[in-house]
């Protein structure tokens, strides 16, 4: 029986140059659920993702995936393990076609994977990508670009998807659609870990919430419980959780 937690941070310390951002971060991500990470600026949310995906050296502590240590492993290997990462902002190659952008999702696939079939399957799911397959990716709208990024990640059929602020720059309607898509992915068995600015809306769509502050985990609970916690507002406006 697999553990209930898919991904686990254990006392992770990491940062940039002389600056330390994560001061011993520990939390676990429940399998098959959608978890949202919230916290004020500088809490270390994005840093935690980067550390997990091997883009930032972990100075001490461990990160476990499926109870196996993945601390400081290269992105390419983590993709092989079944982790996919959708960073903040625009991460497509604007001058290449949509189809070719999509293809990059399969670069790290093991030999013998039928990528063609998978691309077809993904395009079946996202009609807009099929419609615009031959267009330059730069012609996609912001929401479509984000969908392209997520679709690209799905190509390797990951077990865990890390999504950093997917709703930035999207209109409210698009954000709704995006969250619907994420819920659907979770139903399909993918564990989701997401960072969101728009904490309320994200928590309403999630199963669990994790609150970070100053590089440490402050609170972890069901999304509903966190939503109704009066201290959360205070956390964002100063004073911290203990106040």
């Amino acid at each position, binding site marked *: 029986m697999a553990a209930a937690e898919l991904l686990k941070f254990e006392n992770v310390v990491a940062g940039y140059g002389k600056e330390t951002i994560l001061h011993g971060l520990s939390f676990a991500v429940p399998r098959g659920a959608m978890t949202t990470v919230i916290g004020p*600026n*500088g809490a270390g949310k994005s840093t935690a993702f980067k550390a997990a995906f091997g883009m930032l050296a972990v100075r001490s502590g461990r990160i476990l995936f499926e109870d196996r240590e993945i601390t400081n492993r290269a992105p390419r290997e983590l993709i092989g393990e079944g982790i996919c990462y959708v960073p903040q902002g625009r991460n497509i190659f604007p001058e290449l076609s949509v189809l070719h952008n999509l293809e990059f999702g399969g670069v790290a696939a093991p030999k013998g994977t039928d990528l063609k079939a998978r691309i077809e399957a993904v395009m079946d799911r996202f009609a807009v990508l099929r419609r615009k397959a031959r267009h330059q990716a730069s012609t996609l709208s912001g929401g479509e670009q984000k969908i392209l990024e997520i679709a690209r990640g799905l190509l390797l059929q990951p077990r865990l998807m890390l999504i950093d602020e997917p709703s930035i720059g999207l209109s409210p309607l698009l954000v709704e659609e995006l969250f619907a898509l994420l819920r659907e992915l979770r139903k399909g068995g993918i564990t989701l870990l997401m960072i969101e600015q728009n904490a309320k809306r994200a928590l309403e769509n999630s199963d669990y919430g994790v609150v970070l502050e100053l590089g440490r985990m402050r609170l972890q609970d069901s999304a509903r419980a966190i939503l109704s916690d009066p201290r959360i507002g205070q956390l964002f406006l*100063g004073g911290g959780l203990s106040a």
Partner: protein
Amino acid sequence: MNTVLQVRDLRKSFGGIVAVDGVSFDVEESEILGIIGPNGSGKSTLFNCILGQLQPSAGDVRLDGRAVTGMRPCDLNRLGVSRTFQLLQIFPHLTVRANLILAGQEHQGSMLSRLVGRPDAGLSAAAERMLGFFRLEHLADEDAGGLSYGQQKLLDVAMAFMAGPRLALLDEPAGGVNPTMLANLRERLKAINAEHGSTFVVIEHNMEFVMALCDRILVLAEGRIIAQGTPAEVRSDPKVIEAYLGRG
């Protein structure tokens, strides 16, 4: 009270995206004004427009009643406006002392007199005082690049005060500074304000820090001012909480 800075209907857009959308406010003499707001609400862009680092698309900035919109940063600085940046911006290959003297030298004499005059531009004593004030004396002759992050941050802030500015705009002075250093920094800023009557505008994410430091706070969201008032007022304003946590 005198109004030091007047900002009227300032706008800045990049391509189609409006980053600052008609912001107006005043800063009174010896006031410490805080500006807060979620990521991407346009705080730093606002600073850059006020300081001439970016050309505003529209609007008007006045310093002591004088129009300074779009003036070059170096000229504005010589009028007594100094600033710090969100990310650390020191000169790593100069010593700590040289960093400080550099920050003041352009206010001394003419270009020519700076060449033929004293190498320290007559600022050694002032630099010494500043070192003492920010408790960096023991590091005066180190290369600034060798300091710890917190010490560099202190130096960064100290540089903004070398020329005895009339107005200082500080962009996230507390970012990345550890709690002990933070208390030190806040206390120093308060002291400068009290001793010299300098006027501050501070952008900050660290709420505890900003609430304790500032007399008045503006809240920016999506390029507009959505609330302002004392720290206590802002803290309990539902619009502010919504701006941070999102609408349901």
